[in-house]
């Protein structure tokens, strides 16, 4: 990889140990993936949750922080493993919380925005079309590339902090035009889509695209950015997808032939029976749930408002909890506007700064979890301990409230 003189200095440690260490990581990764150079980024998004980073992740983050590292660009952070404000009331063990707070402290020392969300693009991190960023969080990377026209690779844990500290990222993968061309096509032929269907469509694409960039045709013109958010999250959970061309939405792709560069590509039809197979795969039991989880990825204020409407006047049945996950900012807005009160009047709880798939669900004693999130269903079911149920928001509410 070619380094410019300023980058050479960083690698020699002339700007301190944290940057030297970050350069060592970035150049090794850059060389491995065949990047020609390191290029500036406009923002970063990093991971700092204990459930997946473990002790090793604490070692990494504390190493940067203790070396005096500071983020060089605006940097946001994925959810923590606990509700940072109300964790005690969720029964989280002290020792578990202590490990999470070590990560929080190291992240704060590095100077990150404390917004703890997986939908940073709806909350606190706003690059504009054509800019390069280095984001972790697979669902956000799909949204960046597919909807915002922002360029990001799926920057995984360890590399994320290196990029944030340097304000640089290796130029490879989705940063290069030739890798952003669609090479497989999906065409919707499943009729009107429910909330669940958007997640299942994403999941189907993730399963079948392999390492290829897909184009998806046939979304309704009134599809919302939240629906696309959940579609992308399903795709990224099921496979290595980092971008989905959505003709009419994705900048530069007015049509499928724009997306494919007019080349012939393999085509899949997405039928009702394909979506039913996804549902069958993600439904592991018919048992009654002990937890319902909404908001993986985090719900927006709009989605919270819609949920509140559907829950209004209902009560959760005995034996089931309902956790609704969102960002701290949407949480505050929901509190100010009465949305939180309506949701919590059912017996459900609104929770922020954490999310279900990275929280200690097993240690908290849950056995059967019901959700409309393909991402949560895929991740939790893959561990094989908690059984998952995958259903639409409407049918979940029908089943667990009265």
């Amino acid at each position, binding site marked *: 990889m070619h380094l410019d003189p300023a980058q050479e200095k960083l690698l020699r440690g002339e700007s301190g140990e944290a940057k030297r260490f970050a350069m060592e990581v970035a150049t090794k990764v850059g060389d491995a*993936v065949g990047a020609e150079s390191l290029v500036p980024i406009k923002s970063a998004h990093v991971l700092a949750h204990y459930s997946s980073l473990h002790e090793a992740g604490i070692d990494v983050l504390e190493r940067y922080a203790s070396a005096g590292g500071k983020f060089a660009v605006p940097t946001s952070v994925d959810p923590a493993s606990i509700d940072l404000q109300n964790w005690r009331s969720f029964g989280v063990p002290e020792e578990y919380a202590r490990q999470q707070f070590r990560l929080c402290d190291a992240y704060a020392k590095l100077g990150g925005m404390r917004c703890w969300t997986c939908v940073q693009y709806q909350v606190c991190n706003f690059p504009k079309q054509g800019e390069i960023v280095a984001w972790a969080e697979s669902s956000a990377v799909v949204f960046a590339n597919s909807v915002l026209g922002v360029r990001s690779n799926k920057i995984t844990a360890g590399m994320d902090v290196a990029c944030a500290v340097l304000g640089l990222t290796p130029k490879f993968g989705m940063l290069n035009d030739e890798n952003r061309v669609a090479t497989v096509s999906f065409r919707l032929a499943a009729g009107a889509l429910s909330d669940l269907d958007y997640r299942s469509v994403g999941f189907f694409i993730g399963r079948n695209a*392999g390492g290829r960039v897909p184009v998806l045709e046939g979304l309704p013109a009134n599809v919302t950015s939240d629906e696309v958010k959940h579609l992308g999250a399903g795709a990224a959970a099921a496979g290595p997808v980092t971008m989905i061309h959505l003709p009419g939405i994705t900048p530069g792709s007015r049509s499928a032939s724009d997306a494919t560069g007019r080349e012939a590509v393999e085509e899949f039809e997405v039928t009702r029976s394909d979506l039913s197979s996804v549902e069958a795969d993600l439904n592991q039991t018919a048992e009654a749930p002990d937890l319902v989880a909404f908001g993986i990825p985090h719900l927006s204020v709009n989605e919270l408002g819609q949920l509140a409407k559907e829950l209004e006047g209902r009560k959760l049945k005995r034996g089931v909890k309902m956790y609704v996950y969102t960002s701290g900012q949407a949480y505050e807005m929901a509190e100010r506007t009465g949305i939180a009160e309506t949701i919590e009047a059912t017996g459900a709880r609104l929770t922020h700064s954490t999310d279900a798939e*990275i929280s200690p669900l097993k240690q908290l004693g849950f056995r059967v979890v019901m959700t409309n999130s393909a991402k949560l269903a895929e991740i939790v079911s893959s561990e094989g301990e908690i059984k998952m149920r995958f259903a639409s928001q409407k049918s979940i509410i029908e089943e667990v409230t009265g």
Partner: protein
Amino acid sequence: MVLAGRGLIGGRASGTALRSAKAFTFAHGVDPSTGTVTDIRSDIRGENVKGRILFYPFGKGSTTASSWFLEAVRLGNFPAAIVTEGVDLSAVIGSVMARVIYGVEIPVISGVSREDCSKLPQGSLVTVSSSKDGARVEA
């Protein structure tokens, strides 16, 4: 049998082949405290990655995979080498972090197709060598 690939992370290793034909992830898929594959959708569930030459076509899922991988390294339950078809950035970054944080060398090779991998019997003894100039998988 010799398979050629691209050397992403250099080094040499030998061990028995552990081969998956499906997209693979360490995140929620391998127990770092034992090295056992726990992913219920994996075709090598119940096998142990420790000391093995691990083959899979693609990575999948969460960007946390590299930290699950690094935790397995910290606890000594890591594969001897990783061989994939497409580049799995999680494996690359996990291996780089393993070297800079814990001083452990885990070669990573890409560009070996599923079809070629399928010719390697599960559990056969494999030697890999990986460098910028290329990579070889010998069985």
